[in-house]
């Protein structure tokens, strides 16, 4: 896994950035380590994290202490046990489903609006303060209103997740449109392409890299927002399960669930990253 990532800002940079330019010129990109070294370093960092966790709980905390219940030596075996039982897995699936649906809504709204905003300068100028305003409102603050409007259940969660995820997708898509090469559009004109053909064969593939950058950012945000969203008004999902373990005083299960949330988030991010790389690899080979 490579560590350098184009477009880690909210408005990601264009896929063929300076790094690939350097690579094409036959030089190693500056400050990029060989893949093996960087993955070893990454694994080393994770081991240090694990050690710190272990030190803070098993080693340094008093042996009768409450903290002991959150140690890796209890949480990890507990997680292994829980993975063998249906309970946790059901909550995981419920959560993942919500994430996917929330992201789907965000894409359905963010991509078309981003295309429009990126295409028309005036629309961009008109909408950008409004978007900045809305973007800064924590999606969780909509919770009571969302529940009143959509009722108790999954819908308010979809709403909040989509609301959280739409901004990076929208803004990156718009940025992608602005970075389309004018010559690609001239090419479409010179082939007498209809508007629809230009959209489908030039604009959409042209912004795909940016959309995926936005999607990866959105995945990170959604995963973080999901757990608190699930702590109210629903009876399944990882957020619900966290509170449930607390109420049952099952602290080792609680810690195992926290661990699970981290692992799943890590995997989701890796998946989004691999999707991006699979799509853009051939373009910058």
């Amino acid at each position, binding site marked *: 896994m490579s560590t350098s990532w184009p477009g880690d800002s909210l408005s990601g940079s264009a896929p063929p950035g300076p790094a690939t330019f350097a690579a094409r010129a036959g030089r190693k990109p500056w400050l990029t380590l060989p893949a093996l070294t960087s993955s070893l370093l990454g694994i080393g960092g994770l081991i240090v994290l694990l050690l710190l966790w272990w030190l803070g709980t098993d080693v340094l905390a008093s042996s009768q202490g409450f903290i002991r219940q959150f140690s890796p030596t209890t949480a990890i075996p507990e997680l292994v046990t829980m993975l063998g039982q249906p309970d946790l897995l059901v909550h995981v699936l419920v959560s993942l489903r919500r994430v996917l649906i929330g992201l789907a809504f965000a894409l359905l709204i963010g991509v078309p609006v981003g295309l429009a905003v990126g295409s028309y300068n005036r629309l961009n100028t008109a909408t950008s303060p409004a978007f900045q305003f809305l973007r800064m409102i924590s999606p969780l603050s909509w919770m009571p209103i969302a529940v009143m409007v959509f009722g108790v259940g999954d819908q308010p969660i979809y709403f909040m997740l989509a609301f959280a995820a739409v901004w990076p997708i929208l803004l990156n898509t718009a940025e992608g449109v602005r970075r389309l090469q004018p010559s690609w559009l*001239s*090419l*479409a004109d010179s082939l007498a392409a209809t508007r629809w053909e230009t959209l489908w064969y030039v604009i959409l593939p042209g912004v795909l890299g940016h959309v995926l950058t936005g999607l990866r950012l959105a995945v990170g945000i959604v995963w973080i927002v999901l757990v608190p969203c699930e702590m109210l008004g629903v009876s399944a999902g990882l957020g619900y399960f966290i509170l449930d373990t607390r109420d049952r005083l099952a602290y080792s299960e609680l810690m195992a669930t926290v661990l699970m949330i981290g692992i799943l988030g890590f995997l989701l991010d890796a998946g989004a990253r691999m999707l991006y790389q699979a799509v853009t690899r051939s373009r910058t080979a």
Partner: protein
Amino acid sequence: MTALAQTISPASDRQVAVLEAAGVVLHYPGQLKPVVEAFDFELDAGETVSVLGPSGVGKSSLLRVLGGLQEPTDGTVTMNGKPLRGVPPRVSIAFQDASLLPWLSLEKNVAFGLNFKHQPHLTQEESKVRVDVAIREVGLTHARRYFPAQLSGGMAQRAALARCLARKPEILLLDEPFGALDEVTRTEMQHLLLKVVRDFHTAAILITHDIDEALLVSDRILLLGGTPARVIGEWRIDLPTPREDYIAELGAIRVEILSRLRGATLRRIN
């Protein structure tokens, strides 16, 4: 040798014009003067015409009008007698940068647009043959599965040319297609252009700022100058190609073009 006479040849030995511009005016909104005014032009079937002129004179603008990419403010452009509405299917346009789409392989780039709605309908088999022939013509068969990022500048321009050829053009419009290439590659591309024009019996308009390129590949050279742009010189070159053996004859025209060009530029500065 009368071949080098600087004349517009008499109407009698003219073939039918494939492309004709009459009284074309192009005035970009908000600009003081038109870019082009009262421009008349005829392109014969199979003829290669080069257009020279100082930077900013309006060569690209003119090409866009002739290709139907840009509607003229006034006047008409007709292809085979029919007024242009958009770019006709059998006109292929290539620009200075190859504008290959980075997400498509070379062969998909060459095939790009063949199945668009305003293009003549081709079966899959026909398209495939067109693409194969075009790629072979420019000598890129070995690289057909490459992506644009893997192509050198010269290969990219070859691919762009192949994309033009896949549409079996009657007219090729080329806007400084070799401008960004090194000397050797450019010479190679010029020979390729000569071959392509011969093999495909296509007429071509080549915009270039390289006088030698114009001398080596074209049947006729137009020199544009002034604002609004008009033709300030026209040369017909009836020499066989390749022309490397006719340096002396070409040299004479070269000197003429240069002095005319210098005159135009000086007038522009004063």
